[in-house]
């Protein structure tokens, strides 16, 4: 029977993929990195549905007052925007990719992508922050979640 296993093993050949030399794509419906489309987001108009839906408090919304972060995460703070509006932060380090924010968002501003490469070199890079202003908005995204 040992021979049978040997033959089976040889017949199977190499099944490991060439990742990371070649990209490994995941199916479209995979719940990977969530991204926010700031043009669709109505946080500046008082909407906070995603914040309410987020169990690990990965999404936070603050009136933009420089120096005030959400409690406990000051060390992560990266935003240095000036001016009024609201500061929306998405902390990928806390996100559990449950997708409840996507379901909660009535303006479909948040989508889950199939991107699973979330490793970064600095903890601060795990926070994506955007300042959202009232109509006629100047949206600014200050940190990119993209690695590298």
């Amino acid at each position, binding site marked *: *029977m040992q021979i049978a*296993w040997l033959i089976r*093993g040889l017949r199977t050949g190499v099944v490991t993929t060439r990742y990371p030399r070649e990209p490994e794509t995941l199916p479209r*419906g995979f719940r990977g990195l969530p991204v926010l489309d700031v043009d669709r987001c109505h946080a500046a108009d008082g909407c906070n549905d995603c914040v309410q839906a987020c*169990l690990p408090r990965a999404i936070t919304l603050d009136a933009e007052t420089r120096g005030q972060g959400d409690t406990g995460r000051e060390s992560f703070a990266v935003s240095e925007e000036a001016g009024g509006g609201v500061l929306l932060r998405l902390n990928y380090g806390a996100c559990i*990719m449950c*997708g*409840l924010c996507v379901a909660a968002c009535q303006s479909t501003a948040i989508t889950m992508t199939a991107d699973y490469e979330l490793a970064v070199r600095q903890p601060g890079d795990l926070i994506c922050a955007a300042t959202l202003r009232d109509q006629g908005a100047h949206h600014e995204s200050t940190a990119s979640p993209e690695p590298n």
Partner: protein
Amino acid sequence: MIETQSTAKTLEQLIRDVGRDSQRFATATVRADDLPAAARLLVREEGTAFADLFAVDDRDRSGRFQIHLIWAFDPSAAWLDLIADVDPTHPEYPSLAPTLPAVGWYEREIRDELGIEPRDHPLPRRLRRPADWPPETYLLRRDLDWSTTIPRIPARAEDELPPLAVAPEGVVDYPLGPVRSGVVESGHYTLRTVGEEIVDCRLQLFYKHRGVEKRAEGLSILHAPLVAERISGTSAFAHSLALCQAIEMACGAVVPKRAQFLRTLFAELERLYNHIGYQADLCQATGLGVGQAQWEILKERLLRLNATVAGHRYLFGLNVPGGLSRDLIPPVFGTIRRALHDLRTDLDVLEPMLLGSASHLDRLEGTGILRSADARAYGAVGPIGRASNIDRDLRRDHPYAAYDAVDFAVPIVETGDALARFQVRLTETRESIRIAEQVIDTIPGGPIRAEISLPAAGATGFGWAESSRGASLHWVAIGPDGTITRYRARPASFANWQAFPLAVPGHNILTDFPVIEQSFGLSFAGADR
């Protein structure tokens, strides 16, 4: 007090009040002092089994603690929840452990987490409470907030298990764990050996206590499944399913048919990757390297299938109270069907190869025997119980989701050894494929999620699911604002770990231990929560 009550001939004589009286889940009130008598009567009933024992801090509503003893009545597919009030000023009740060995751990857990003392418990020592927590810190009392920082103290010897008697000459105590090679979870064993033979096994678990039940307190019912999924990643779907069913019972929600079928399909996809992965682990334990790789390939294919159909390799985020978070479109059913067909084709090749490998079977046969009487006494569930001649499967005996609409066999083996556990899982893999195919063939259309209306304050619900490791039982109480006030989860591994040390001594040598451990396939994190 116990003596005066033990003359009761029937359970009805002990019951003081009947609460919820649904066909599937009935509650009744008994006096705390009558609990052992009730347990004695229940143990004698044919076709019934102990399910769970836990306590609830109900002081803010009734001013009392409550003990819940849940019992399964298989012939009528019903559950009975016996509730006994305990006075918080004298928090104690007579221990059931002398009657029912299975409750030994459960009572120690109640003692640890609510400070309710089981009188005459044979081993009143800490079970799961971290050794360096102050003695009066009761995690599941409502007045302790989950975010409280617990001060640390030096561990107290009087709360630890008594040390093993000093080994005489020639007897060697072999410590194993808690940190071991590979990605094995943390657990500490002391294996007492005479020569090669293991004569005793001491188990120390609970290094992975995350306070999952406490974390759920105060959460909205929408968020609760996220917590349940994290009890044990490889049983995520079964846990969230059982919890959602408990919430649905509390809220009186009726889950749409299509969601019931989809839940059945996902539950079987979870069982499949677990059972296939189990074979890989067992091959690793017996040193069958190529066999391990072959089963791992199948498991990876199933995980990728999960990612495709559910968006998550381990099926997180699917169950929501009232149904499911996503529907499947017809082409996806085709994908699953093809994957199942390929899996069956591979099983047709690999199964005979395993069954023909003497080096594999020799390591399993007669190894780690869990006798049927022990399995019964300690309440072993799932494939472990079924390999020790316990003919129970919640999918058949207490059908939930769409299990009453599909046909499947429940394999039972009598011998209780590693080979039996291997065979049971092998057969169940085939049956899972059959169930999944039947679901795909017969799934009705319609919505996948029902609206949930918040229940009256104090509503409770009980949910169950047969995970790949056995019965997963969940109980919730919902408060006035629709948030969870008490969450109780009894994963299958908690029940099975208690029986595990009984299978280790006796005609097993030290090198059999990895095989015994893998043949049980238990979850450390699952038992711990």
